[in-house]
């Protein structure tokens, strides 16, 4: 009898925000997962050794059952906002709606160098502005225009840098600037439903598992020279159900972020060490309380615990300033010092369209360790490792990490 193996890439993972605990929702966001994505039951069992006159184990019982999962992916701009708000907590998204929201006064053709719009609100400054034309349609495109708009209405906008439009657009099509989502940590998070199709997507017989009432245990935002921005998100969930069939998987049609799109400000400087970062991690831990069990096998609730945000990076060594800052109290210090080395990080990735971006801002980070450069006979460059912890600076800062996302999602997550 032949066996029927199932390819391990026949899989999907989706996520959706629940309106309340105990009310799962069909996920509507599906990420393009990477290796490292996994799902596992966290089953706690007990061997019951009863004195029955034998040396045999009489039974094993289940004490508790929950789920751990990890999703590794290269986030797209709208997905990224969802995971950031899930990690930061309920109500963490302070949205600023687009300043420009108008319509084309006339249709445009492929290769057009100008457009006309019916309103100049948000278009009176000087410089350039990225606008999305006909968002959410097959002809959606982002172009950068020179402002201010000219004319007395309808108003004319010229594509910057002698550029042209790639698609045709109709009169009355929407023209909109980006929405801004400023995300900061809150006291607790919403519940999410996660669904894994493990060999069920492509007509095979693998399971489809829905995990209800999940919260984020930790999220690691990583980047490495030449690579893509990568997220590793660890969830803990309460309840599972086996689904009879896979969901309709829909994938966000935007681009991921490239490491080369990052602009670094390290300790308030955009030069020196800020130009020498070859990799970084910003790791947030919510330290979930996953020990709340009452009358059932599954958990009764999950709540956020203490928040920690660690910033680590590897730098090409150019000077001893970070060593001095960490161990000698200041960038120019020369001897052992009680003073903790303090700095800040501001890292912004902006996509080539100038429309989609993400910015990570840690206003105060205290240096815990700088790994010293190690002499090696290979003659290659010295590297130093940076380990720091974001703090509230004794309560002076209203957040430890602020993530700002610009994209075309015009409602709060």
């Amino acid at each position: 009898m032949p066996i029927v193996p199932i390819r391990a890439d026949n899989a999907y993972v989706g996520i959706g925000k629940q309106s309340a605990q105990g009310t799962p929702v069909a996920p509507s966001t599906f990420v393009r997962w990477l290796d490292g994505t996994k799902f596992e039951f966290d089953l706690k069992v007990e061997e019951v050794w009863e004195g029955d006159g034998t040396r045999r184990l009489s039974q094993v019982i289940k004490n508790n059952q929950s789920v751990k999962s990890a999703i590794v992916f290269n986030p797209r701009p709208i997905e990224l906002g969802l995971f950031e708000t899930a990690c930061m907590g309920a109500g963490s998204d302070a949205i600023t709606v687009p300043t420009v929201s108008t319509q084309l006064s006339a249709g445009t053709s492929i290769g057009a160098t100008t457009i006309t719009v019916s309103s100049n609100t948000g278009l009176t400054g000087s410089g350039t502005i990225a606008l999305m034309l006909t968002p959410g349609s097959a002809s959606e495109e982002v172009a950068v225009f020179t402002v201010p708009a000219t004319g007395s209405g309808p108003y004319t906008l010229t594509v910057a840098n002698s550029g042209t439009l790639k698609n045709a657009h109709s009169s009355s099509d929407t023209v909109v600037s980006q929405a801004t989502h400023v995300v900061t940590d809150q006291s607790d998070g919403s519940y999410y439903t996660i669904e894994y199709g493990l060999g069920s997507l492509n007509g095979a017989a693998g399971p489809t598992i829905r995990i209800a009432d999940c919260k984020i245990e930790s999220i690691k935002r990583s980047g490495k020279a030449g690579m893509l921005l990568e997220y590793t998100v660890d969830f803990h969930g309460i309840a599972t159900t086996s689904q009879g069939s896979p969901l309709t998987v829909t994938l966000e049609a935007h681009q991921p972020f490239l490491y080369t799109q990052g602009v670094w400000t390290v300790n308030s400087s955009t030069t020196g060490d800020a130009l020498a970062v070859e990799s970084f991690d910003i790791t947030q831990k919510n330290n979930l309380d996953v020990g709340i069990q009452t009358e059932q096998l599954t958990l009764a609730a999950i709540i956020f615990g203490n928040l920690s945000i660690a910033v680590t990076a590897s730098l090409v060594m150019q000077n001893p300033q970070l060593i001095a800052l960490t161990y000698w109290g200041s960038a120019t210090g020369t001897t052992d010092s009680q003073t903790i080395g303090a700095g800040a990080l501001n890292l912004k990735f902006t996509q080539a369209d100038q429309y989609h971006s993400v910015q990570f801002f840690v206003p105060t980070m205290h240096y815990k360790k700088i790994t010293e450069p190690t002499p090696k006979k290979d003659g290659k460059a010295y590297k130093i490792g940076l380990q720091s912890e974001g703090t509230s600076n004794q309560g002076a800062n209203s957040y430890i990490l602020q993530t700002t996302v610009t994209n075309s999602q015009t409602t709060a997550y």
Partner: protein
Amino acid sequence: MSNKKIPCEYTGGHKVDLHKYGGPYFDGKGQQLLDLTLNPGDSLMMPEEEVLGFTLLRDMSGVQEPINLGVGRVVLSEHQGKDDEELYAIGYQFHQGRPDFRPLPTLVSEKKKKESDK
């Protein structure tokens, strides 16, 4: 679990790509989609449980298999009148449908509506 498909409208805020291996896909009129990009306002045949949700009645002691009560929010006659907290305690689990799709009226549903309006 119902495998019935119903015509739906995609109401998400941005265009998405349907997964290459999840098809074949059909629009709300039953025509097969050859372009896998889905724009807001496009129609798609979707599993009704995925869009409308479904209700499970679970054994809270974790011994019996849950019972699928069907599409949407379903409450058995013997439990009518109880509030959500009481229903959850009994074992009801109301799975909500996808927020980025809405069902489109069909000829059958339109006919039923007209009959009920009379």
